[in-house]
């Protein structure tokens, strides 16, 4: 399962600590926020901010309990995950919300990390509950419509607040650009024991996978169309060029043939003799 896989990228840390890192990033961002308000922040800057904020803080493993204590902890797994899963980090950044707007997301990002995020979402407490409002119509994506439709279903699950925080991500899944709302969104942590949660999580997982699959399908279709269009223009040009060449060639050939004909045409027939000189008389 993709979600478990992402977690195992930091094998030496228990699951919860990576969740912890998620909220630590939030905390880090909050602290370092002043310089990063609003405006579009490129993915590179984001990553840099993650690393710069994570470096000075030593490794710690935590259990997921009081949100307050967790928020102060340093994040650790980042540098490790960096080499393999930078996109995951960015995704966590987005989750953290902060004041970032546009974040370019790499491919495959949504496929693993959103699932991962959602499964974690049930276990991470939300520190600030903000309205979902500004989210999103994440434009800049080719395919937002399905995201919007799907978002309606999101608030259904029992985790109401979580649903609200999931909404934007649902839309973001099928696109490469996710627009985080101006208001910060936090992840709600909640006890995992309820079986109802698992069922809805399964549903969400399936919905996400479906979205990703739909996005891939649209991508495929678009790539094919683009290819065909370029082929068409290329072939049309070639065709025109070849037709012109053929016409030129034909003209040349005709001219040459005409030149050869004329001397023959001008040759006089042998003049007629009035006297019989060519036949013999017996």
């Amino acid at each position, binding site marked *: 399962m*993709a979600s478990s*896989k992402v977690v195992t990228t930091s094998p030496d840390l228990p699951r919860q600590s990576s969740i912890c890192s998620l909220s630590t990033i939030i905390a880090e961002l909050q602290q370092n926020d002043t310089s990063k308000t609003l405006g579009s922040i490129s993915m590179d800057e984001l990553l840099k901010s993650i690393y710069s904020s994570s470096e000075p803080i030593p490794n710690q493993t935590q259990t997921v309990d009081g949100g307050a204590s967790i928020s102060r902890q340093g994040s650790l797994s980042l540098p490790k995950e960096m080499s393999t899963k930078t996109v995951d980090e960015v995704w966590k950044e987005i989750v953290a919300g902060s004041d970032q707007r546009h974040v370019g997301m*790499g*491919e*495959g990002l949504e*496929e*693993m990390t959103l699932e991962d995020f959602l499964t974690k979402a049930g276990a991470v407490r939300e520190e600030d509950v903000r309205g979902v409002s500004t989210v999103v119509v994440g434009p*800049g994506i*080719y395919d937002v419509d399905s995201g919007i439709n799907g978002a309606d279903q999101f608030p259904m699950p029992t985790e109401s607040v979580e649903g609200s925080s999931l909404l934007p991500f649902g839309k973001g899944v099928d696109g490469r650009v996710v627009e985080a709302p101006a208001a910060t969104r936090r992840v709600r942590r909640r006890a995992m024991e309820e079986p109802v949660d698992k069922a809805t999580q399964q549903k969400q997982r*399936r919905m996400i*996978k479906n979205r*990703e*699959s739909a996005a*891939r*399908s649209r*991508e*495929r279709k*678009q*790539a*094919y169309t*683009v*290819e*065909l269009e*370029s*082929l068409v223009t290329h072939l049309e040009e070639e065709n025109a060029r070849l037709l012109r060449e053929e016409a030129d060639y034909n003209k040349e050939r005709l001219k040459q043939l005409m030149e050869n004909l004329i001397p023959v045409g001008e040759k006089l027939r042998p003049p007629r003799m009035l006297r019989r000189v060519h036949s013999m008389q017996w």
Partner: protein
Amino acid sequence: MRRERDPLVVGRVIGDVLDPFTKSVSLRITYTNGCREVSNGCELKPSHVVNQPRVNIGGDDLRTFYTLVMVDPDAPSPSDPSLREYLHWLVTDIPATTGANFGQEVVCYESPRPTAGIHRFVFVLFRQLGRQTVYAPGWRQNFNTREFAELYNLGLPVAAVYFNCQRESGSGGRTRRE
């Protein structure tokens, strides 16, 4: 929004497998099992791609050699590409203007057999600096084209093309696990 005009970018081949490059050599791949020439994003069935295709490389100097790599970045399934990239074919020392038959087959052609989802199969052409010995990797999965190119000093690709392929019977339907 600026419309992206390169199918390799739209299909995310550039990104998942390759870095952006400029095409400089013509590369034509034809599966003879049905006279299908591969064009970006076209769909082929596993039965069409069972045998290795005919490869036609452009260029002009027979003394320039090229390497051809064929990988599947969506192995074992596009939603969970844990084996990205799966190496299907590796031919080196192909002289310009010729085909794969004239090169050294370092990793023999393995027929694509996708089991889950719709996979992309990418052909990448690199220009070699000279004749070189290329060692086959220990296994086909988790091949990294970028690293391979760096390892053998191949630089950026000079051509690439990809096609889609899914199970003969299509990819729809629920699996039993759910």
